[in-house]
């Protein structure tokens, strides 16, 4: 076989290579550089090997933050994914209701993160916030600034409010791609409502749901702005998630070495989970095709 080799093609890749280098590879390498050195000033620095990694991995405060983070992310996924699917199933399929619900659903997605935090900060206050006031009026003692549980729930509800729309829109797009004939055939085959969901709607939503779960996993695992604005990580450390812990370490205490080491660990966790999840889901889909 005569394969034409044209090495000029590599030049076409160069622009992308430069962009990726500047936006991702060089910063990442800088972090790697920090993570293996102890730097006092640009002239005074020592190579410390894996010391920072060992210190970081043994830090119990970090273990707490990581557990909190995992629990938070799982809660987000377990609430937002089923809720998003449920809402998508109830949306109208035609008429004016479609555009109306699209606009309504898109609204939370259009609001910047820090504004979302501010909205809920005020909304949740017992003195001037509608939400906090109404909850206290019902006789429940609610104060997210003092009670860790309340803070935790507020952050969670905020995230659900902010991001469920994304899952709804993705699922809705998946549902819309199902031809009417499928529903008609299912009717004639005598399928129950559950069977229609299980065998027609869910399989058709699968690919968008994978994207949805990945996006929500990554975003919620890296969540920073909203809790930072809402609670500042408190009360105590109740809502201090990984990114905030990291920022405190890096910018607050200027412990660049441990912070860099931890960043890498953080990065690897996200990469690993996404890769495992994606591979497992995609392989499950392919089973039995050969």
């Amino acid at each position: 076989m005569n394969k034409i080799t044209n090495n000029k093609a590599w030049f076409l890749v160069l622009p992308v290579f430069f962009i990726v280098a500047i936006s991702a590879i060089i910063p990442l390498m800088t972090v790697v550089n920090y993570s293996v050195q102890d730097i006092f000033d640009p002239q005074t620095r020592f190579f410390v090997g894996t010391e920072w990694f060992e210190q970081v991995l043994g830090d119990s405060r970090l273990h707490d933050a990581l557990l909190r983070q995992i629990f938070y992310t799982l809660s987000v996924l377990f609430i937002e994914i089923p809720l998003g699917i449920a809402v998508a199933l109830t949306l109208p399929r035609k008429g004016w209701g479609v555009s109306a619900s699209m606009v309504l659903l898109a609204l939370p997605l259009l609001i910047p993160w820090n504004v979302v935090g501010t909205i809920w900060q005020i909304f949740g206050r017992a003195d001037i916030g509608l939400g906090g006031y109404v909850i206290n009026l019902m006789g429940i003692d609610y104060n997210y600034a003092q009670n860790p549980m309340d803070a935790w729930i507020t952050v969670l509800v905020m995230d659900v409010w902010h991001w469920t729309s994304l899952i709804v829109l993705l699922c809705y797009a998946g549902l819309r791609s199902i031809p009417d004939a499928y529903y008609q055939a299912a009717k004639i085959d005598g399928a129950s409502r559950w069977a229609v969901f299980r065998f027609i709607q869910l399989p058709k939503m699968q690919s968008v749901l994978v994207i949805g779960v990945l996006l929500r996993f990554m975003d919620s695992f890296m969540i920073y702005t909203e809790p930072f604005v809402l609670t500042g990580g408190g009360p105590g450390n109740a809502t201090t998630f990984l990114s905030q812990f990291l920022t405190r370490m890096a910018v607050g205490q200027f412990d660049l070495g441990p912070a860099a080491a931890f960043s890498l660990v953080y990065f690897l966790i996200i990469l690993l989970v996404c890769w495992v999840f994606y591979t497992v889901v995609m392989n499950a889909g392919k089973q039995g095709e050969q």
Partner: protein
Amino acid sequence: MARIDLKSLAHSYFPDPKTDEDYALRRMEHVWEDGGAYALLGPSGCGKTTLLNIISGLLTPSHGQVLFDGKDVTNLAPEERNIAQVFQFPVIYDTMTVYDNLAFPLRNRGIDEKRVDARVREIAGMLDLTGKLKQKARGLGADEKQTISLGRGLVRDDVSAILFDEPLTVIDPHLKWVLRRKLKEIHNKLRPTMVYVTHDQVEALTFADKVVVMYGGKVVQLGTPQELFENPAHTFVGYFIGSPGMNIMDCKIDDGAAWVDGQRIGLSDRHLEAISKQNGKIELGIRPEFLTLDTGDAAKGADGNGIEVNIIKVEDLGQFKIATTRFGASEIKVKLGEDEQVVGQSGILRFAPEWTKLYADSQLVA
């Protein structure tokens, strides 16, 4: 298995239909026999899918009733009517195996596994799916997916009717032929009532005992393939069925004969008597098979029993020839035997009186 009665059935997609044009389906009255194989044949937009969906219950007609074995099912949902339907594009349950796909309509009705297994294997055998039963349906080609859809339609043996909505559109030509034969075989064996929608006349004529030809929301003729061929009740049937279709010419009746562009075409007394009661637009139709074209020596000594035509072209289609002839404004196609020779540019066209049809306002008169 059931007899299907359509009692003064009509449907309009408008809430308040006034003129005939507002109806997707004009008023009709039909009885389709139990165990019959019916084809609904017509061009796109003639209302055949509307009619099928009314029978299956996916659509509730705006007027009239649908009866299955005398029982009014007009307002019943598809699952309550106990019918099966196969759609134009394959509908399969991606995540299930071929076996589960076929078993799905049975399991939904709580039939016991033993019986399900027997039925699934029987149908899979008929459709050559036995080797694929354990595969996931997702990875199969369009042909196989549609075969599964067909199988799901056939798997229940207690259905009132099996409805097919252009089921072979996505199938490639060779397999189309095979599947059509299979359907016919299954019909002969199990005698379900089958209704088959198609716009392909070959499909309709080979599949069905009775063909329902639809045009503009109306059933213009219901008959056996032979009746449609020999005795088209409407000019549309003549034109749509047959290849090439019937020759249709505007004509006048005068002096005991039909006159087309000043040429005389002899008619029988039967024709003349029937047409004398009619007014409206009169047309004369004859199938290319029933015309003879004399050329060369045979055309000499014309006895006034034919009309002179110019021959425009002769196409040889292997088993027969099609000659296109012209006189005045009319273009007439003639089907000739493979061995018949056409000499010269003109000839005499002879009409077989018993196959010459007269139409008034497109309806057959005689």
